């Protein structure tokens, strides 16, 4: 389906989707450059200004942060793989870590409830769900994958 070589090159697959594929070490300092790269490509591929300034960078930062700090527990030698696929209809982001995964359906904290407003944590998954059209999690080749789907607006 895609040119999955981890080089970060932009490629076109057989059905015309544009694909980015990059492998990064588990270090939170790696987040900003990869988010900038993906966001820049989204701009080039004409996603909306709001999606490029808010939805994509925030949701992808959350997914990467979870993968690095929770999935890979900050062990730099472990890697996170980021794939971005853009078609005429949607952007699909996949973030894969080396962790054991988690139950997405069990994560139901609502940080907007009055008792939760002053919590310092618990907004990551909420933001991913709020800013993306769909959030999925699955296992692939012993990796935990979070998939974010955003329809073009």
């Amino acid at each position: 389906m895609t040119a999955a070589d981890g080089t970060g090159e932009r490629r076109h697959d057989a059905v015309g989707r544009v694909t980015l594929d990059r492998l990064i070490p588990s270090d939170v300092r790696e987040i900003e450059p990869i988010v900038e790269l993906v966001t820049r490509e989204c701009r080039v591929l004409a996603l909306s200004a709001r999606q490029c300034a808010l939805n994509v960078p925030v949701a992808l930062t959350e997914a990467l942060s979870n993968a690095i700090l929770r999935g890979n527990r900050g062990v730099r030698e472990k890697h996170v793989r980021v794939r971005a696929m853009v078609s005429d209809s949607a952007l699909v982001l996949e973030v894969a870590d080396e962790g054991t995964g988690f139950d997405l359906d069990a994560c139901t904290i609502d940080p907007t409830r009055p008792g939760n407003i002053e919590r310092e944590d618990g907004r990551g998954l909420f933001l991913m769900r709020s800013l993306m059209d769909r959030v999925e999690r699955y296992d692939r080749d012993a990796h935990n994958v979070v998939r974010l789907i955003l329809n073009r607006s």
Partner: protein
Amino acid sequence: MSFSIKKQGEICVVDVEGQLIVGNRQELKQKVLDELEKGEKKFLIDFSQTGYIDSSGLGVLVSLSKKIREQGGELRLANLNDDLKTLFELTKLDTLFQIADTRERALESF
């Protein structure tokens, strides 16, 4: 990304340049806490040069808000662009913080 703190009268004005995310939030937190420890009470965080904020960045703002309040101080936020306003509205943090459209209005509100 960088954070700078300047005194404007008795108010500490913090400029957030770039992103406020998991990789740099501690730097902002520590800078503000250092000023709080020195006895400063009034803080304004200006987001006019800010790109985006993630959940960790929002968490640090919540934490600072509580710590400043505990010390009898006040925190204001200013210059959120439309995307950042949406982020605060989504999370309902617009109900927790006092947010001004401009730095001047925020300064006047103390």
